């Protein structure tokens, strides 16, 4: 699933946030968008996820324009986890996962064997089999996020769009969710485009990272290339120290706000 974003201009209520932005997500990679609040990374994700219609430009998924595609057909190949989601008090993990089959089912058609096995696989992948009868609202934050990921997995997508999937989670749950995303990428070959705030998590689990600023992609490259004092200063206005381990993993240690006057 190769995703090409071509000269996208997009925003809310005539205020354009993205300005002729270009980006290519290669098939099978995890590409993470980073940038300060309001830089347009969520806007980009929403435009790709057809929540926003771009005023200019196209988003092409495997040769097809996303905003011209049938929304049900698109939902069969692209799963999206936005920041805001709700669910009823008495919804169980299994029922929520079952909702992921919505784009594949006709009205009044009962679950087919294929639906059932897809739901089962989604529960296995997210390690939620033993919690299938639990109410979503009785789960821990990490389990709950995994349940929502199980739902989009049941769509049997090839591309995942995730908007800050680790927000509000404690550090263990953050790792749990990130390891799950890495596993889906590795074992199912899912292409992932996501937004993260935690630079170290992003660097640890991404194939490539891209910085967003002023409605454009300002830098794109491997985590080792993007975790760079100059790039981070230009993107976030922060001073950082970068630690590089012999195995190639990089860590960032932010320690001060840059002095904008100098």
């Amino acid at each position: 699933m190769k995703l090409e974003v071509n000269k996208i201009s997009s925003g809310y209520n005539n205020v354009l946030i993205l300005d002729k932005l270009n980006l290519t997500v290669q098939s099978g990679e995890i590409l993470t968008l980073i940038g300060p609040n309001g830089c347009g990374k969520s806007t980009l994700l929403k435009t790709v996820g057809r929540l926003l219609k771009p005023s200019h430009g196209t988003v092409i998924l495997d040769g097809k324009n996303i905003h011209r595609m049938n929304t049900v057909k698109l939902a069969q190949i692209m799963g999206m986890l936005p920041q805001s989601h709700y669910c009823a008090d008495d919804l169980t993990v299994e029922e929520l996962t079952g909702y992921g089959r919505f784009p594949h089912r006709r009205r009044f058609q009962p679950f087919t064997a294929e639906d059932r096995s897809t739901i089962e696989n989604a529960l296995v992948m997210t390690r939620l089999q033993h919690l299938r009868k639990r109410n979503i609202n009785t789960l821990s934050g990490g389990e709950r996020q995994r349940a929502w990921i199980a739902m989009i997995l049941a769509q049997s997508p090839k591309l995942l769009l995730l908007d800050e999937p680790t927000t509000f989670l404690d550090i263990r749950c953050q790792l749990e969710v990130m390891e799950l995303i890495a596993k889906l990428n590795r074992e199912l070959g899912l292409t992932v485009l996501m937004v993260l705030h935690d630079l170290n998590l992003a660097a640890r689990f991404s194939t490539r990272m891209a910085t967003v600023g002023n409605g454009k992609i300002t830098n794109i490259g491997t985590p080792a290339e993007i975790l760079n004092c100059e790039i981070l200063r230009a993107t976030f206005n922060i001073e950082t120290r970068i630690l590089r381990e012999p195995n190639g993993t990089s860590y960032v240690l932010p320690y001060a706000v840059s002095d904008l006057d100098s």
Partner: protein
Amino acid sequence: MHFTTSGRRMPIKITIIKSRLSYRIGVLILLTLLLLAASAWGLCAGSIKLSFSEIIDAMNSGVGVARQIVWDIRLPRVILCAIVGAALALSGAILQGIMRNPLASPNIIGVTSGGGLAAVLILVVFPAYSQYLVWAAFGGALTAALAIYLVAWNHGAQPIKLILSGVAISSLLGAAITAILLFNPERVIGVLDFSVGSLSSCSWSHLKSIWPYALSGGILALLGARDLNIIALGDEVATGLGQRVELSRFIFLAVAALLAASAVSVVGLLGFVGLVAPHMIRIIIGADFRWLMPGCAIFGAALLITCDTIGRLVMAPLELPAGVIMALIGPPFFLWLLKTRLKHET
């Protein structure tokens, strides 16, 4: 709820599926029995008491006082109560679903006040046209709903904007109603029945004028349960699953307006069923719209028949409007349900 905490203790999957399913089927059966009992009571009770066998005889005979009472007065009234109660409850359930707001009800989409204003205009200002009362109320209700949708529209109608514009337009229409009544004090009594939700003057002709709309609205509401479940996950998630959220919300709003308009046009301002019945049923049967919708329809019907029958009995030979009874017994019952539900959750 106690039901799902039991699921935690017993992780055997078949048992849970069966018990939850059979619980919900059981609730629907109980509600149906309740509806049948309420209907039978509504036919039997009144200033002239009839036993059930007398009713059967009266229906078979074709002549006599008993037949007149049952066939011309009580039967249309019970059926009308059932239709109106079901329509209002379904309308409220739809609105609470598409707006994801527990306070949504037929009142806030302006249907009640729109229908009310049109009815008051006919009754007070143009009494010569009072044979068109039902149609005027129907038109007023739908016009108000449409106006609210248009005011809320801005690249899509967000639920919160719908609610706020609904509240604003409703109070505007309410002010107009009050003003008209104040300037025509001698006609207030004639309007009072309409403004408190009374079924005292209803007949087969009322039934004939609304049943096609109530029925088609009801069928659409039941068919849409699956989409309401998806919309309940949030607009963004629903879009991600391939739901056309804006289009669905517009269609559901139209269906809710149609249901409420058909109810308001014959019984007047009787909104409380639409607010409370969905909550009661949600507490009992759960939030899954595939079960909630039929539950609401049956319960709304039973509730209104009961309230109307009580209203006929408590101060006989005077009649208290069903709306008044509803407002008296509805809230305490609702509060009791809320309290017991909270106990289960802690």
